[in-house]
């Protein structure tokens, strides 16, 4: 099932939640909508599900107008952030709900319902909890039951709203891998919303980065990490060193110093230089494009992180860099820094 979202606009009072959003989701894809809170990602998901209606724009499933159908007629499985399990029904009845409310003509008989529910409970590996009530389950179990319930109606699309947001870090990690494996098994077109970049990059085939109701970039996890197209994407995904620079006559200047790096086609004017923290190499003083004094060093795992004070225009700019453990850094030491990879974006006004 492909999903085509076109020119979607959604306002809540004065607040524009979605501002002309276009998106095409390919069949069988596992797509992440990634962005900070208020970026419009959940609103977009709810509009696709039919739980919210857009003010303008169109949505089609396999070329068919989805806005002509209500939430119940779209065959969309929706998994809520806080599970939204029916608290007065046991696990079995929760999963069976979507089957039981079908019109009589198409409703499976009791034996077929039992069989299907048991299959789904096996799929989420929680068959032994069939008689429990939601309040008796852990967060991770509830989330898996919510997923089984959504899958019961054999949805054409699976939508997950911050599926792991309310879980602790360890369970979250397990469920992530589990969801990835499940998607490979059932291959239903899936979209999940998250504000956790690691989650998006690890689980999704493609990532849609959103900010302030607009899509900033769509790409594979590698693309959005390695080749961010906007300053927002660069700063939102991964950790970056950001320096205010100016591009003038084909050169990049930091304060009064001309840096020995290419402009890579950046337009003239005030700009921002983005460098991943691990994309700087340490040089002898005077050898790098940047120079600064080490102020603080913290070592953990395979890397060490250092605060370096850059001298620019007589003032200091503090940046954080990652360096390999084998290069010993002393507090107070002067070092040269050479950006191995970097990107330049026009400064945000």
């Amino acid at each position: 099932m492909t999903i085509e979202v076109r020119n979607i606009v959604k306002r809540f009072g004065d607040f524009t939640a979605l501002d002309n959003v276009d998106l095409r989701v390919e069949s069988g894809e596992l797509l992440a909508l990634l962005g900070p809170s208020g970026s419009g990602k959940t609103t977009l998901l709810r509009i696709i599900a039919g739980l919210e209606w857009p003010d303008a724009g169109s949505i089609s499933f396999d070329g068919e107008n989805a806005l002509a159908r209500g939430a119940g007629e779209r065959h969309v499985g929706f998994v809520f952030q806080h599970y939204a399990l029916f608290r007065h029904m046991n696990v079995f009845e929760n999963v069976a709900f979507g089957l039981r409310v079908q019109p009589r003509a198409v409703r499976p008989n009791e034996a077929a319902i039992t069989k299907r529910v048991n299959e789904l409970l096996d799929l989420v590996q929680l068959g032994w909890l069939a008689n429990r009530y939601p309040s008796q389950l852990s967060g991770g179990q509830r989330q898996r039951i919510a997923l089984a319930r959504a899958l019961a109606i054999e949805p054409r699309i699976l939508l997950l709203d911050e599926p792991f947001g309310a879980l602790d870090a360890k369970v979250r990690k397990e469920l992530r891998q589990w969801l990835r494996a499940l998607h490979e098994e059932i291959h239903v077109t899936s979209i999940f919303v998250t504000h956790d970049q690691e989650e998006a990059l690890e689980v999704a085939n493609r990532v849609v980065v959103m900010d302030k109701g607009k899509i900033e970039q769509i790409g594979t996890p590698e693309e959005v990490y390695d080749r961010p197209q906007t300053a927002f994407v660069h700063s939102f995904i991964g950790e970056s060193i950001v320096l205010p620079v100016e591009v003038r006559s084909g050169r990049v200047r930091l304060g009064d110093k001309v840096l020995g790096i290419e402009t890579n086609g950046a337009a003239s004017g005030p700009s921002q230089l983005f460098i991943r923290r691990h994309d700087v190499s340490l040089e002898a003083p005077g050898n790098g494009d940047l120079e600064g004094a080490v102020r603080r060093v913290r070592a953990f795992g395979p890397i060490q992180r250092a605060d370096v004070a850059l001298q620019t225009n007589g003032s200091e700019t503090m940046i954080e860099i990652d360096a390999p453990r084998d290069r010993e850094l002393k507090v107070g030491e002067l070092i040269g820094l050479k950006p191995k990879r970097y990107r330049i974006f026009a400064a945000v006004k």
Partner: protein
Amino acid sequence: MSQTIPMQEFASARKSARTEPAPVRFIIIALAVTFLTVFVVLPLVIVFTSAFSRGVGAFLNALADPEAFAAIKLTLIVAAISVLLNLIFGVAAAWAISKFEFPGKTMLNTLIDLPFSVSPVISGLVFVLLFGAQGLLGAWLQANDVHIIFAIPGIVLATTFVTFPFVAREMIPLMQEQGTSEEEAALSLGASGLKTFWRVTLPNVKWGLLYGVLLCNARAMGEFGAVSVVSGHIRGETNTMPLLVEILYNEYQFVAAFAIASLLAMLALVTLVIKIVLEGRLEGHHSDH
């Protein structure tokens, strides 16, 4: 300066930071118990002893009186209709207020409390001014031979008005707390609005609903002020139990008055017991999540 505290002293030391010295505790408890005895227990005891002061025979005779019987019947009918109306209204209002956004929502929420803040006599008077012979619609009603004031419809109207906050007030916080995500889940699973209501919304609020109905019923049966204004006190026709109690008392028929009163008191006691049971259920329901 380390000292060992003698055992006796240690034992007499306060066991908890929050407890008070024994005399203070005694005074506070005694105050509460005395108050309850004077204002609740004593009146209840007097109602029952007076009802049975001439023996069980007189008590039963008083209840078997046709006027008493008519009053009991009328009270049950009025309560049944009012509770049903308020059940429908209360659920609709709670549903609207807790699950939708619409203009005038705050207004509706405030208006629901109106009967609590208005004197019941005024509530009754409003209906007299509306439907009475000299009232706004009086002429038209008379021309079409519709009797509202000094008849059962008026009593039902007044009782319904006075009791309408009970169900809604009980339901609104409960439904607000539960939010809309379960309903959304049901909708996305293909359930119609009606199925969602019957299978998801209603089961989640059933104990709260019963609780509201119970309080609504107790008040509907006991209402005096509003009903007194619209009833006209026609014996055997428009006298409810509370009205009859007053009439009998004024006529010095104390046994009969207290016999009817004891039925109302019984209703109160039964309501209290069911209320405790329902509160337990509600608590259990809340602590589930």
